């Protein structure tokens, strides 16, 4: 589908400030830093999680464990795809049991990815708490899921797409709203 840029929402400076606020909010809510762990959802959630991990290290001098989660296997729409979506790696090197886990994704939209991530985490153990940090919340939820930490709330039309671009994957930090051509 051909898309064009509708609006640029954030540049690298704004993104950095928002990430810093998210890092502080996560620390504020979770006083026992030694119980805290971050889990980034493939692909961009992983990079957002790494940045938050680095910011926490700068702010507090503590190293919060971070894991990588691929939710493909737990999707509820596998039968709807013409071809199977690529499975990426999951790597969680710590026990989730009794930890305060913060799930991190770049965009929360329908909530179905988060539902799949929750199912996947519970296969690994029973965390003490499971929280959700989303860099962008673009609305249109189809499930009763609400982020605990929200970088920015961005009301969008359904046909639009929020594109969180990151240095690590896209060579540049910015957030764009895309819309189909012809609108």
């Amino acid at each position, binding site marked *: 589908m051909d898309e064009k840029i509708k609006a640029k929402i954030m540049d690298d400076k704004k993104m950095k400030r928002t990430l810093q606020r998210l890092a502080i909010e996560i620390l504020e809510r979770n006083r026992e830093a030694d119980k805290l762990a971050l889990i980034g959802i493939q692909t961009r959630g992983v990079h957002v999680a790494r940045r938050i991990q680095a910011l926490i290290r700068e702010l507090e001098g503590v190293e919060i464990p971070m894991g990588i989660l*691929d939710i*493909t*296997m*737990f999707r509820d729409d*596998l039968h709807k795809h013409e*071809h*199977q979506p*690529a*499975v*990426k*790696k*999951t*790597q969680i090197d710590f026990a989730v049991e009794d930890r305060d886990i913060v799930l991190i994704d770049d965009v929360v939209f329908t909530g179905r990815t988060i539902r799949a991530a929750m*199912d*996947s985490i519970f*296969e*690994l*153990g029973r965390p003490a708490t499971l929280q959700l940090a989303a860099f962008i919340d673009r609305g249109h939820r189809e499930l009763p899921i609400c982020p605990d930490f929200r970088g920015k709330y961005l009301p969008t039309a359904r046909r639009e797409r929020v594109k969180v671009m990151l240095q690590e994957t896209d060579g540049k930090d910015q957030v764009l709203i895309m819309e189909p051509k012809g609108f």
Partner: protein
Amino acid sequence: MKDRTFRQDHLLGIEHLSVDDIETILETAEAFIEVSSRDVKKVPALKGKTVVNLFFENSTRTRSSFEIAAKRLSADLINFNSSVSSLKKGETLKDTVLTLEAMNPHIIVIRHSASGAPHYLTTFARSSIVNAGDGFHEHPTQALLDALTIRQRLKTLRGLKVAIVGDILHSRVALSNILLHQKLGNEIALVGPPSLVPVEFEKLGATVYYDIRRGVKNADVVMMLRVQAERGARNYFPSIREYRNLFAIDRPIFALAARRAILMHPGPINRDVEIETSMADSDQSVILQQVTNGIAVRMAVLYLLKGEIHEALN
């Protein structure tokens, strides 16, 4: 990561796969390795799908490997064992499969002593067919799990010398591996007695050696094949003792291979026939890693085939 799409309806052999297909399967398998390290070794990807293991030849490891793979993907699995089936009562292969298909399975994993049996099924079956070994033809999942093991240990699948030693003539493992490494552009050395390694194999881009020392020299991968006594392999050489003297792998011969070479075997191994027992248990031996990788590769294949009921080819 390149976004690849797997477009095959069946897995009949390495012959039909592109290099991209092979890499997609291996990358997917890498992701599945983690599932087997969890406490709860299960993901819901194939929930509600039915996999039939249709084995017309004895097999414990391949059959159980497919079984574990299907179950870790939450598929339902039926083992169909030919020795207790209606085949004994005179039913044909086609009727057996049509009967099974009337129960709407999604994937049929077949092992059969006739080369080409899986291909034949695709002419009338609506399920996805997976070849788990057909006669002297192919055993694609074995070659794929070997490739995954090589990539894990040597960090690459290119620019390698792969030596395959033993009964090449009757080995579907050998043929699938030859086809795979030919596609990847690797050097292939085939080693064994002339009766079991016909020079015609050179037409597949391999080099034939009757001297194991020359074949194994500088190899990055040394793949030993089992002497298949049950297939009459012993009629092809004078005695086991002579075979062992000429073609078994031991430390002095393995020392001729590349410095970080690995030793592989599809199993079951005949200790002190084709492989000296201390070699089988050495650090260079990856035999058990192959078994572990077998599950991940079979999970990847079952996942990528998806188990969608489709039109038969004709």
